[in-house]
């Protein structure tokens, strides 16, 4: 995991997210800011994804998790949300996962409006680049609801993104 790349990527991603959310403001590291996204999607196989989700949860986002196969998450949670026009959704997934979600989003005339490469990673030590993200999002929810599964984790290109109407 390239910490610098992630911090840079996260910073620009959060700026994009903040801009989209309208009310969010990137402030100093100690300030707590409400998440502009009611919902955040993460591939919880990856420490990076779990850290991103934890930070977003603390800031008030609902977190939708999946472990590689996003079928059930999409069917049960995301699809109904999109069908009811649930607003911009952020996520941190593999590139392939994002591709699938982009195609599904088209069913609701939604599109990817922001995308930030997070770099390639394997399961490893706790993600250390989330401080900036955590500082930018308010801490509202416990973070231990997102647990990794004990299964082989592939190397993957990860990406943070926003899917929205426009």
């Amino acid at each position, binding site marked *: 995991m390239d910490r610098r790349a992630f911090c840079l990527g996260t910073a620009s991603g959060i700026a994009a997210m903040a801009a989209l959310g309208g009310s969010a403001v990137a402030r100093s590291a100690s300030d707590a800011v409400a998440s502009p996204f009611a919902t955040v999607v993460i591939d919880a196989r990856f420490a990076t994804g779990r850290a991103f989700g934890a930070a977003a949860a603390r800031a008030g986002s609902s977190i939708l998790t999946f472990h590689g*196969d996003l*079928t059930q998450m999409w069917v049960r949670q995301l699809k109904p949300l999109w069908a009811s026009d649930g607003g911009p959704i952020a996520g941190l997934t593999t590139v*392939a996962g994002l*591709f699938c979600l982009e*195609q599904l989003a088209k*069913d609701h005339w939604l599109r990817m409006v922001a995308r930030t490469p997070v770099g390639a990673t394997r399961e490893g030590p706790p993600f250390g680049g989330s401080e900036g993200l955590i500082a930018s999002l308010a801490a509202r929810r416990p973070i231990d609801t997102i647990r990794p599964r004990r299964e082989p984790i*592939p190397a993957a290109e990860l990406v943070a993104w926003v899917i929205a109407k426009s």
Partner: protein
Amino acid sequence: MMLPPGVKQSDFSSALAEFAKAVGGEWVFTSDEDLNLYRDAYSPFLHEAEERVASAAVAPASTEEVQQIVRTANRYGVPLYAISTGKNLGYGGSAPAMSGCVVVDLKRMNRIIEVNEANAFALVEPGVSYFDLYHHIRERKLKVWIDCPDPGWGSVVGNAIDRGGGYTSANYRNHFDSHCGMEVVLPNGELLRTGMGAIPNAKTWQQYKSGCGPWIDGIFSQSNFGIVTKMGFWLMPEPEAYLRCTVTVPRYNDLMPLVETLNYLENARITSGFPDLASPLNGYPPTGQVQLWNESGPPQQTPEHRRVLAGAKVGFSPELEAYGIKSGIPYWELWLSFHGPMEVIDAQWRAAQRRFSTIGGVKFRVVDRMSLPFDPSKTEDYHEPEFGIPSLRAFSIGARTPWNPTPSKGHMWFSPIIPRTGEAIIEANRVFAEAARDLGMPLFRSFAMPACFWERSFIFILATPVTEDPATNKQYRDGFQKLIEVGGQHGWGEYRTAPVFQKSVMDVYSFNNHALQRFHETLKDAIDPNGILSPGRYAIWPKHLRGSQS
């Protein structure tokens, strides 16, 4: 704003205004950001000017709105291109066959009109996805299965019209063959129902396919003769039990009796589920386990295995065969599955074993034997589509690995139909591997096995990657065209292809100076004289564009 070829700006604007009047202004799309949603995510012209793109899109919510759109298009000469949900990636996606068409996006027409459990059929609109139909059935606890492709995110109607396939029983795997009755908006806006549906207040529209007189349903698939707005399908009664077994044989030449016996068993309906061929010795997985291999990689091979495999030609060398026998690695492996009452499928498996026993060294193994439905928490243990369960698992891979070289940029499916014989598998491998190697196409690693979607033929489904590099994409496009020609020279043709290759594919179907293609054009001229429906789809061009576009 892009204009359709030969259409004046004023006419196009008038047509768009009338489309908006018909469907509501919010369902007519003209901005670049909206039209980007209709680009083919797997276009072989990635980043190139030749990519086929829409000039606008319109999303009707009813058959009546489709009729109004078609009539308006006729008045102004605006070409349309109908899509259901546009998920046939690798075969064109939601992009039109000709740039400048207005995409008619049917995904708002998503009503499941009927699911009849007692006689196992359904009637749906084009916007209904396999997931929609599956969950509709599950929520109502109806005891019927759908048959879906993998991934199962697409339209039931769209996949059938594109002649896609699935993974359950032979009666249902061919999605066009398992349809029963259509409703079609013709190019003049008139509404037609096929089969028994032509009878007002028909009582058997989804229960008898052909009605009386010429059976015309086929002309509305892979074509541009109408927009299908309703379609019936036969569903599979939920089986009581499931049995999955393997048959393995040790020698190269065992492939011929293995396939011949499979054909007998399937054509006689002794085996009912999706048969799946693999070659453990050549390192080729069964179709149903490609996902697993992509996730975890194939079984490890010893250095000696890799060495003898590298020396094999068309999947064979005496050393490879000897190594397989010595190491207990089968040359060929056939996966069979059976659906039905347990006592019936056990008997069918015994009959199958008796038939295969004539092959020396054959071995049998029962992999799964269980009552249905199985515990939903165990779904991930199986290839879901073989149980009629749609899945998106194909996208769970994030990594570019030796086993998964093209995870996200896309691919063009090269999918020739070949005879259902062992000899044809070997001959197709020889011909295509040789051609692909000469063309620098990364299609074959060592030996490829065909899939058994169709009852009496095999099909190869080979992914030609789409890359970020236009020069490489051009090389692969040119190579793809050449492979189509090579296949044609051997009497093999594609079953389906992306718009970019539809002319080349249809050129192979050239018996008697392209009599088939000329018949398509005669039909087109007769029923769509203004040429407004999906010009160029499967190389059927209206008269005014024939030659200039094709």
